[in-house]
């Protein structure tokens, strides 16, 4: 097995448009992906045979892993005509995918309408507005599933107005990770990755990366993570037993699934910030908690290279109370 499978940038759309628009499109698409892989060696000091590595996805221009899926969805929809000139991109999102769509919409000059639970942070609302997106706030008590339902209703009512991107059902979501994230991990670890660990939200990251990694080396263990309860504070994550299960999810892929408590994710976010100088978001911290559990459950001195996804930085979560605790 070699590391010959290099990733490629998410392909840019070929839709006709002004030359300046095409240049902007190329520029923004070209900056997505190829994020650094950060060693979290201090966390595994007691496990000398284990390397723990995290993809620093906040290096994407929109600040999160969601740039990959959004770029893939938009690129594909422009190529196949679903996002024709004049159409509005519509989706439900709790934040990061919305930010990615809004950024792409601004750069590629298409309008964006997002259904967002009202309880997302002010920081996020303001970022979306700065990019010029139109926001429809949905009932905070209904969470992300409530936002999905409103987006579905709007899409059904106005099929000519909207391109309903539907990140939960759109195969371009997981394909982004199949084509980029997995190949980057393979290349950056020189084929040494033994475990891949990722939170489940839309499930696109886990599904796409796992499918490709298993092709590259079927022995790579892929572990999915989800919140330990329906009522949780891990942004972007889904408790699948009680949520609308995303149609792109493939339950046959995971070798194991671990449940992560919100409090353990909060504690890890504080620890990474205060002891390692790494300011990550709650779901990134949850992914590190899960990765450490995987590492600690290995046989003694079993060599392993555990790779996880650090979805975004902590900047969008600074108004949360947990930073002040512990």
């Amino acid at each position, binding site marked *: 097995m070699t590391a010959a499978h290099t990733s490629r940038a998410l392909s840019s759309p070929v839709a006709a448009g002004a030359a300046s628009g095409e240049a902007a499109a190329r520029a923004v698409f070209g900056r997505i992906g190829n994020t650094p892989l950060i060693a979290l060696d201090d966390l595994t000091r007691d496990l000398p045979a284990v390397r723990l590595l995290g993809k620093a996805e906040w290096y994407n221009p929109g600040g999160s892993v969601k740039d990959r899926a959004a770029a893939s969805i938009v690129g594909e929809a422009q190529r196949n005509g679903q996002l024709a000139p004049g159409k509005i991109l519509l989706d439900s999102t709790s934040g990061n995918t919305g930010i990615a769509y809004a950024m792409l919409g601004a750069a590629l000059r298409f309008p964006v309408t997002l259904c967002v639970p009202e309880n*997302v942070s002010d920081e996020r609302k303001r970022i979306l507005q700065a990019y010029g997106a139109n926001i429809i706030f949905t009932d905070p008590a*209904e969470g*992300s599933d409530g936002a999905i339902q409103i987006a579905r209703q709007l899409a059904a009512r106005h099929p000519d107005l909207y391109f309903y991107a539907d990140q939960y059902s759109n195969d371009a979501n997981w394909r982004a990770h199949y084509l980029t994230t997995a190949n980057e991990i393979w290349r950056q670890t020189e084929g040494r990755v033994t475990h891949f660990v990722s939170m489940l939200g839309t499930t696109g990251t886990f599904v796409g990366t796992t499918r490709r990694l298993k092709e590259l080396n079927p022995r790579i263990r892929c572990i999915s993570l989800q919140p330990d309860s329906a009522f949780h504070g891990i942004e972007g994550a889904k408790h699948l037993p009680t949520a609308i299960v995303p149609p792109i999810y493939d339950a046959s892929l995971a070798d194991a699934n671990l449940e992560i408590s919100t409090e353990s994710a909060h504690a890890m976010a504080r620890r990474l910030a205060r002891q390692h100088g790494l300011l990550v978001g709650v779901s990134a911290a949850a992914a590190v908690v899960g990765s450490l559990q995987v590492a600690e459950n290995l046989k003694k001195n079993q060599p392993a290279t555990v790779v996880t996804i650090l979805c975004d930085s902590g900047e969008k979560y600074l108004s949360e*109370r947990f930073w002040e605790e512990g």
Partner: protein
Amino acid sequence: MTEVQIPSPLRQYTGKQSTVTVPGKTVGDALTALVGQHPDLQRHLYNDDGKLRAFVNVYVNDEDMRYLDKEATPLTDGDTISIVPSIAGGKGIV
């Protein structure tokens, strides 16, 4: 009496009710009464130290109780309390 709005993931612990009416002169009293009526909510709303979990936000009408008098915030008849998990922070003014 105060109406407490229950977020969808917690309705499995309130007999599927989306709102629960409770007595109480303060937010703290009302939440205690809520957990008294539906004891399964305790471990979802509070940590082992008896404090509200860090991601649980409580609003009185549309104000975050953190910026009022917290649990001591007084209630008058007809007030509505909402329990909202922070996906990332509170529901602020846009």
